[in-house]
């Protein structure tokens, strides 16, 4: 077959020597190209590890985004001060650089934020995030560019298909957060294990859910109902009421729930929503905490402002947690909690929340993955994340090792329940860990 480029389409040399001039220009261009390539190569050789935090720097969730930004900057400083990240193919210790992609607390913002991180900042790995919907909106671009991604919101859709099986097309995603399914299952076990014996000792436990109408809320409830079937728990779900994201008036739903007389109400939303649900339940609708257990609420509510805003009416309510603002579980595995909390408070003058902690851990995971990969090649980092196994960081994990299970690329976290008690001296609620027994400082106590 005739090679068109080499044969018929090759430009005919100019008989007056202009062809030689063109050749010289081509040579010059080639040399310039080579020089540029060498320079770029040198830059690539010299550049630091580039991590991209996708979070809400603006919009309604900006304050929680600020928590992530602070926690991440702390982790970066610690890693850089501790000798940076060793990258084998450079045979050098390399500093971490952080870039922020602002999701603007919206799906559209998440797309532009992740585009900036991938295209403009050319990050080696993307991580973090607050809202599942925003992280999911960023996912198509991450898949297209095959960028290693460690999301920290809770939806299992990051790694699984809508039918909840593993999704091979998301092979670059490694989920570092307890999922709604995990939380839902733990809530079912906790209610049956601790609350039932107090609220409904000889009866089926009647439970009502009031949850956010979003993948976040739906998966918590799905985890709960799946666990009821799986463990054949003696629980009757008497109400499943929902509310839209950002809604703050729950009185009609709570009035209906009160009329159905459940033994427990699980209010599932973000921090501000949870505070409003509990306050409206007790103060406006008149749900009596002596007759109905309120909780457990989402771990995402566990933030210093939650304890402050909820006030006395939060007495005896419970939280299903992964990280506690004030309590520290027993045992040496949790020593790192106290160190992290002190360092954060010393540097920023405030306490961190759960999403800050998960982003902090994610920086260490990313740094370890780069070390394991020995390269800044994205494919090698993805491979390293798949094989990674490291000591528990701040968030508690089962078996004390952080590893992404090969099936779903999720980490098996250790969840625990806390009950709230009013501290007269502080004038604020404080938590006591009550479940599971191996971590518990006390048992669940009836409000009376």
């Amino acid at each position, binding site marked *: 077959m005739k090679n068109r480029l080499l044969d018929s389409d090759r430009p005919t040399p100019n008989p007056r020597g202009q062809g030689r001039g063109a050749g010289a220009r081509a040579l010059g261009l080639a040399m310039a190209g080579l020089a540029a390539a060498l320079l770029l190569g040198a830059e690539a050789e010299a550049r630091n590890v580039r991590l991209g935090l996708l979070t809400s720097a603006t919009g309604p969730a900006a304050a929680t985004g600020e928590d992530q930004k602070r926690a991440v900057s702390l982790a970066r400083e610690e890693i850089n001060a501790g000798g940076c990240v060793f990258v084998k193919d450079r045979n050098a210790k390399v500093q971490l650089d952080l870039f922020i992609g602002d999701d603007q607390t919206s799906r559209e913002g998440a797309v532009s934020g992740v585009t900036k991180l991938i295209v403009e900042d050319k990050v080696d790995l993307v991580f973090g995030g607050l809202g599942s919907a925003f992280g999911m909106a960023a996912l198509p671009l991450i898949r297209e560019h095959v960028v290693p991604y460690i999301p920290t919101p809770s939806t299992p859709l990051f790694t699984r298909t809508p039918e909840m099986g593993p999704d091979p097309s998301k092979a670059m995603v490694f989920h570092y957060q307890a999922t709604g399914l995990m939380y839902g299952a733990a809530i079912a076990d906790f209610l049956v294990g601790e609350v039932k014996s107090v609220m409904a000792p000889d009866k089926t436990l009647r439970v009502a859910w009031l949850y956010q109408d979003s993948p976040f809320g739906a998966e918590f409830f799905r985890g709960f109902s799946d666990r009821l079937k799986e463990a054949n728990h003696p629980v009757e779900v008497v109400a499943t009421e929902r509310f839209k994201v*950002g809604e703050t008036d729950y009185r009609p739903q709570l009035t209906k729930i009160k009329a159905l007389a459940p033994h427990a109400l699980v209010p599932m939303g973000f921090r501000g929503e949870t505070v409003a649900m509990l306050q409206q339940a007790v103060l406006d609708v008149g749900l009596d905490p002596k007759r109905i257990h309120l909780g457990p609420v989402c771990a995402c509510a566990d933030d210093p402002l939650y304890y402050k805003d909820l006030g006395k009416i939060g007495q005896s309510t419970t939280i299903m947690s992964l990280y506690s603002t004030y309590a520290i579980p027993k045992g040496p595995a949790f020593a790192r909690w106290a160190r992290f909390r002190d360092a954060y408070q010393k540097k920023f003058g405030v306490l961190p929340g759960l999403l800050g902690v998960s982003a902090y851990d994610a920086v260490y995971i990313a740094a370890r993955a780069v070390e394991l990969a020995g390269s800044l090649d994205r494919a090698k980092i993805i491979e390293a994340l798949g094989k990674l196994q490291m000591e528990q960081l701040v968030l508690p994990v089962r078996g004390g090792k952080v590893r992404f299970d090969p099936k779903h690329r999720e980490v098996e976290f250790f969840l625990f329940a806390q009950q709230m008690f009013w501290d007269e001296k502080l004038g604020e609620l404080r938590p006591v860990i009550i479940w599971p027994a191996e971590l518990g400082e006390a048992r669940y106590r009836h409000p009376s």
Partner: protein
Amino acid sequence: MILDPGVLLQVLIWGLVIGSVYMLLATGLTLIFGVMKVINFAHGELMMTGAFLTFLLWHALGLHPYLGVFVSMAGVGLLGIAVERLGFRPLRGTAKINEIFLSIALILILQNALARAFIPYFREYAQIRTPYAHRVFDLGLLNLRYDFAILLGLTWAVMLGLYLLLFRTEFGREMRGTSQNRLAAALMGIDVGRIDTASFGIGAGLAALAGSLYGIINPFSPYSGTLPAIKAFAVIILGGLGSIRGAVLGGLLYGVVEGFATFFLGGAWRDATAFILLLLVLLVRPEGIFRERA
């Protein structure tokens, strides 16, 4: 059990409470539209400015929230006057799209200014706490928190005051005259520019009242005004553009339908059902419940 009269009465009360907020918001909107024929898309942001001003007066200065409400009404009323004089008045007579873009710009300016000032301290939501937050009236079939009773009473007192202003004073007559026929009013010697300014100021003040009362019963953020403002637009279409009576009835009807829809059908239907009501009313009476009075 859920059809118990006490339970249904309770849902009706929730509907009337939130309906009163919609009513105040819609009344302000319809007053501005009736007089100036301007659609102020930033009305929800004026509402939130009012809520945050009351919050600030209470939280930072310790002013009683129900006194703060009036200071906030005056403050946001003045802001409304400034917006009318410096923003909408220079655009009068130009293409309508200029007014629309001005109000969209106001949305962004007010939302971002409030977010910058408050979110670093209060995260997603703030709420105004009155000394009566834990006090309830025992009404037999149901308990009613003092704050809800005050909200209903205060709303109706202000609406009565507005009625007296519009229908029992010379100024109100001039305002209604301007609303009916601007040119004729000007020819009769009415200072229509002054009427515009006053209408915008009163409308903004009512939005501040709506926001402050909303902020006493619900948590709010700088972005919380958007949805109530959309609903207020639906209310004034439902009630009849430019009609105060329509805004009052439409607001209450909207709140009650929304409450019962949430109760019977669930939260997912909250907004949809009320808009379905709007569509149904418009099918039967395209001019709204109360025709705009010429």
